[in-house]
């Protein structure tokens, strides 16, 4: 009876077949990407709690050790105190994080340029893309060297397991860059799918500082790495928004589908129709950009909340004079009630693709420079000092890899803007970034997935 019952029990599987077919690879990865975006945005919150706790602990220790060297108050209150020298391990670690940030910067640039190439069906951007790939490859090499130098791939006891895991995830993504490039070159995937792939790589790199920070004992180092990490998330998200908007800007409208075959010739407005904003989830090209913009606002708030005034100033300086916010705002507006980014339809604004491309890349470069400056302040021993804003825009290659040419003959340098920066897309913190506060009310907030995974591995 027992054996018979066992056999019958095993046969019960047949009574509950799936009610729909398996998800396609594209849908699986899209949904996974959406979860990862949320996770990246929310991961900073527990880290914020840790930094506050560490700061409180540091204050308490100083109160015990001396009555004349107490720093009480919010993070900014500690500014001006002399930064202590870095340990050799921290110095190596911070150098590694700079190479990580630089690699992410190059990947972000490649994302935008790949979007240009894909959206124009290869008609534009090939030269810049080729040059960018060289720069990305150089950044990968520098990353590999530094990762080995700091033992970021060690798995033996005593190693930072979180860092090892984080680097492993990033390594996996980096390995796929070649595949992504093949898809770009052969138009095997629509541009949005490729943007997701690059974003995943960028997000995995942005996660490395968080893992590194978990093993940092020195509060000042932790706080600086924490700020740089937050800015890295801002930068990665900003680059993703830029890439997502690059597609409609290059095409001239928000595409509703790519014909399924990824053939750029099949692109059409499709379900986006003449009102991408009103189409909701049906218009992926608009909705995805808007979702990412909301994430960018959240990341921006997180950075602003915990950065020192010097770090905020560096970021503001990187954001100042940029034309990109105006262009971005116009791009979103051109999908609200109309679907025209060429300025033909009444109420739409013409957005020049070359100008948009240059502005997007310039902003990515400037934000990356600000991020690098924060890390560099640790190496220079000026982490508590306010960085002179003009130094972060000094021209020249990055500290670790040769920078890709941000512009060439077809990409004009971003002109200084005199336009108002107050009418951008949904943004929540114009006081610090100059961006708009008006969140698009017609768009439902995306649902956030609650953490329902098992808390114990193996379950």
């Amino acid at each position: 009876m027992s054996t018979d019952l066992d056999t019958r029990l095993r046969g019960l599987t047949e009574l509950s077949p799936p009610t729909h077919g398996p998800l396609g690879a594209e849908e699986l990865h899209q949904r996974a990407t959406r979860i990862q975006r949320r996770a990246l945005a929310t991961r900073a919150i527990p880290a914020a709690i840790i930094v506050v706790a560490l700061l409180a602990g540091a204050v308490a220790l100083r109160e015990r050790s001396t009555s004349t060297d107490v720093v009480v108050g919010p993070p900014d209150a500690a500014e001006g105190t002399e930064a202590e020298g870095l340990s050799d391990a921290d110095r190596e670690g911070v150098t590694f994080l700079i190479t990580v940030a630089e690699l992410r910067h190059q990947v972000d640039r490649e994302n935008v340029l790949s979007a240009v190439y894909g959206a124009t069906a290869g008609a534009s951007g090939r030269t810049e893309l080729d040059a960018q790939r060289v720069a990305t490859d150089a950044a990968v090499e520098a990353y590999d060297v530094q990762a080995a130098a700091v033992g970021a791939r060690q798995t033996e006891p005593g190693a930072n397991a979180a860092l090892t895991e984080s680097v492993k995830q990033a390594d996996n993504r980096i390995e796929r860059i070649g595949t992504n490039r093949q898809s770009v070159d052969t138009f095997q995937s629509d541009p949005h799918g490729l943007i997701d792939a690059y974003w995943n790589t960028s997000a995995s790199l942005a996660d490395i500082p968080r893992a590194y920070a978990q093993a940092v004992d020195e509060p000042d180092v932790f706080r600086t790495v924490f700020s740089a990490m937050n800015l890295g998330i801002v930068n990665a998200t900003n680059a993703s928004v830029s890439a997502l908007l690059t597609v409609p800007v290059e095409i001239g409208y928000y595409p509703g589908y790519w014909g399924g075959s990824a053939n750029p010739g099949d692109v059409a407005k499709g379900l986006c129709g003449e009102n991408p904003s009103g189409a909701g989830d049906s218009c992926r090209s608009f909705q995805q950009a808007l979702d990412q913009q909301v994430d960018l606002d959240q990341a921006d708030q997180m950075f602003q909340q915990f950065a020192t005034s010097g770090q905020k100033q560096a970021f503001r300086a990187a954001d100042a004079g940029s034309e990109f916010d105006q262009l971005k705002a116009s791009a979103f507006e051109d999908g609200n009630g109309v679907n025209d980014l060429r300025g033909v339809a009444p109420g739409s604004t013409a957005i020049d693709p070359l100008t948009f491309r240059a502005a997007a890349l310039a902003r990515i470069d400037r934000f990356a420079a600000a991020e690098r400056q924060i890390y560099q302040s640790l190496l220079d021993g000026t982490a508590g000092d306010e960085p002179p804003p003009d130094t972060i825009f000094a021209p020249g290659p990055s500290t670790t890899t040769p920078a890709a040419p941000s512009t060439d003959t077809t990409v004009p340098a971003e002109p200084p803007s005199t336009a108002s920066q107050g009418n951008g897309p949904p943004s929540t913190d114009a006081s610090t970034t100059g961006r708009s506060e008006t969140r698009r009310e017609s768009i439902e907030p995306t649902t956030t997935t609650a953490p329902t995974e098992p808390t114990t591995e193996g379950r």
Partner: protein
Amino acid sequence: MGAQPAGPPVVGETTFDAFYRDHRERLIATVNAATRCGADLATDAVDEAFVRALTKWARVERMEAPAGWVFTVARNVVHKTRGRRTIESDLARTATGVSTSGQGHGPAVAAESQWELWDAVAALAERERTAVALRYLGDLTEAQVGEVMGIAPGTVAATLHAARKHLAATLSAAEPADDGSGGTPSSVAAPTTDDSTQGGSR
């Protein structure tokens, strides 16, 4: 799940793709049997769990029983989603004639006795039901079942033994009814628990 041999490799297929292909159907049945949520919700929950596994595949694939992890996530999704489901949907399901007797809604090849067994499993206490689902439908080892349920392997064995005993009693009590000699399965069924929805793909 865990002991199930993988299907033939497909050119260009990733390890995740193979995992998804090989375990999806079995996991849907396992989740449905364990939670009595219905095949619709089980399918959605398992797919959602696979998506989450994909987001952290480098870690999940190194686990001894990745399918056990997916099961746990899917079960959590079911619990969370079921709380949002309206009573109206249950009523609508009832109104459209979905029965709990197992007739006419499952695969044509399914024998009546198998539907009786399904109902008997559904009537088990939650702990026994979960253990049975994981062990037999999910094809996990007793050790893996213990990992998923958070209990010792010995406890798993004892739980399965008790479950089999309850099932045997339920099925034997049902036989006279099939012969027309009266009696109802429910009169001797194992203790039921909280869930209100039952059935496989019905």
